[in-house]
């Protein structure tokens, strides 16, 4: 009986083509856009050429300093301000009138860099220019010290050596952010219409009364509907994950290089699928309650909207943390723990203790929500319009 109801509900949900189109393809589209955005962001500095505006009359020394900066093209203009406002250059540089003479005389030569740092391109260009000028200054200081018979090494009071603990490609952090977020959004947004339709929709269409008039136990009905919502979420989650894997594998270079799952690849994918099923079930259970409470599909969707925020809230707790900084709480807290465990998996870590805590914690919450739903589903007020 459970199987019959489940199959019918699944067919009914999957036949809603317009909703399905929006709920499946929108997250996939969003996923695709984000994947390429991140890929572009990572490779952003490599091919990008910035334009630096200068006034006419640069000395050969000044030109030599600036020409040495990679990916920077110099343009000589009359009005620096106007050039920047028109967007013809990302930044401008002005050497004071007697810059070379002052530098030769051992005095301070002033340089002004102009730009709007609200622009990422301007910030990048200013960073490149200041780095080059810092190097130029270091050479000048070294020359001056030698001329004054002073060992240039005297200026170095501290030697800093940074040892990188992580052997991972730094770009993997972006994937650790991207994949759980998109999966969470795709699953919650994707299963929301099915959830609203299966309870509130049935009340609205009065099929719920017809259903309750059959000799089928209400727990069986509830379980079948819950499984349907969870299945829709799982299908959408797996579809989204497949699309992102294909896109990363075949259409990106840097993101692909960042992923190194090693020998555990199959195991990681298997655990990933379990996590997707688990999250779909958790979200399905939460959305089921909003649909039981709602008298109409519209009402159920209104109740579900703030719940869908739960899909992205965990980012606040996870963003900026390395996998070593995750505490037990990150794996106990539902919703947050999904993000934490996926992040670990993306880093190629299979920690069974964490995985079992996540599964146990989510199953406990799902059971509690299911019991609450069953209580609500037995009351006329919530079941019959």
């Amino acid at each position, binding site marked *: *009986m459970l199987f019959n109801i489940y199959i*019918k509900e699944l067919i*009914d949900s999957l036949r809603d083509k317009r909703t399905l189109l929006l709920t499946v393809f929108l997250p996939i589209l969003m996923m695709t856009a984000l994947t390429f955005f991140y890929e572009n962001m990572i490779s952003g500095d490599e091919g990008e050429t910035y334009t630096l505006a200068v006034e006419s009359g640069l000395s050969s020394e000044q030109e030599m300093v600036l020409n040495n900066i990679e990916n920077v093209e110099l343009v000589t203009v009359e009005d620096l301000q106007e050039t920047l406002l028109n967007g013809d250059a990302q930044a401008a540089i002005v050497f004071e009138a007697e810059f070379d003479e002052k530098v030769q005389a051992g005095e301070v030569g002033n340089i002004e860099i102009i730009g709007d740092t609200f622009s990422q391109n301007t910030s990048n260009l200013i960073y490149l220019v200041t780095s080059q000028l810092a190097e130029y200054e270091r050479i000048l200081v070294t020359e001056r010290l030698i001329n004054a018979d002073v060992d240039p090494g005297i200026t170095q009071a501290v030697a800093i050596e940074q040892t990188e603990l992580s052997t991972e490609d730094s770009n993997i952090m972006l994937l650790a952010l991207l994949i759980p977020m998109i999966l969470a959004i795709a699953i919650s947004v994707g299963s929301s219409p099915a959830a609203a339709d299966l309870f509130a929709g049935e009340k609205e269409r009065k099929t719920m009364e017809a259903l*309750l008039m059959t000799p*089928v136990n209400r727990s069986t009905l509830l379980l079948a509907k819950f499984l349907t919502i969870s299945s829709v979420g799982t299908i959408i989650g797996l579809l989204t994950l497949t699309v992102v894997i294909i896109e990363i594998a075949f259409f990106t270079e840097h993101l692909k290089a960042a992923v190194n799952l090693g020998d555990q690849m199959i195991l990681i994918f298997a655990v990933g699928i379990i996590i997707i099923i688990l999250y779909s079930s958790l979200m399905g259970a939460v959305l089921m309650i909003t649909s039981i409470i709602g008298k109409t599909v519209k009402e159920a969707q209104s109740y579900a909207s703030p719940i869908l925020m739960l899909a992205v809230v965990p980012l606040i707790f996870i963003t900026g943390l390395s996998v070593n900084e995750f505490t037990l709480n990150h794996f106990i807290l539902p919703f947050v723990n999904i993000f934490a465990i996926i992040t670990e998996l993306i880093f190629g870590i299979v920690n069974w203790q964490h995985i079992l805590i996540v599964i146990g914690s989510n199953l406990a919450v799902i059971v509690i929500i299911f019991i609450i739903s069953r209580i609500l589903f037995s009351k006329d007020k919530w079941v019959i319009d």
Partner: protein
Amino acid sequence: MIEIKNVTKRFQDKKVSVTALNHVSFKVGEGEVVGLLGENGAGKTTLLRSIATLHTPTEGEINVGGYDTVKQSEKIKRRIGVLFGGETGLYNRLTTRENLEYFASLYHLSKHETKVRIDELTKMFGMRDFLDRKVDGFSKGMRQKVAIARTIIHDPDIILFDEPTTGLDITASNVFRQLVQELKQEGKTIIFSSHIMEEVDLLCDHVAMIHKGELVYHGEKEALYREENSRDLNYIFMSKLVRGTEGYAI
């Protein structure tokens, strides 16, 4: 067959208690067609839902075929078919056949029984042309046929219709009336609520009138006509409400 014994149903709306049914008692015999009359909000739907085991009476009890609606609801559900509204309770994305098959499975009909029953109902209701079409886009008349077929897929002895022709056009209403006549000939016990007096006059042999949750009248239709010396059910209904047994106010 259906015995309603001193049934009271109260709903708690925040801190206010609303009495939808107030000590209602009457019996419905096998094969009777009973018209349940009353204004909107009189308690007709609550009474039908209580008979259908969807509501638990606050006081009193209801027996259907010897079974208690609260304690033995599962047994009653196998013998009863309910349609709330004229053309409701259908899954639009499923075909007529899929709708019927689904409900047949919920009533534990075997595949063979389901096939036989769908064939019977298809002939009975003339649904051959749209048996394998999705319900979405059906006319009200077509939907109504499917809805009634769905209601009686398990061949129940008792059928309850709650305002079955409300919102339907004249053709769809006539379809319903013809179908009730056929079910009546099959010996089914039918209770249907309505405020269309002509419909009740045409189809019912018994009448029950409810006003503000209380039973104003129950008995044979012809006896009522003789008692009131009129065959105008509309007039009789209004005068019953005015007179009432305890002076009902309209």
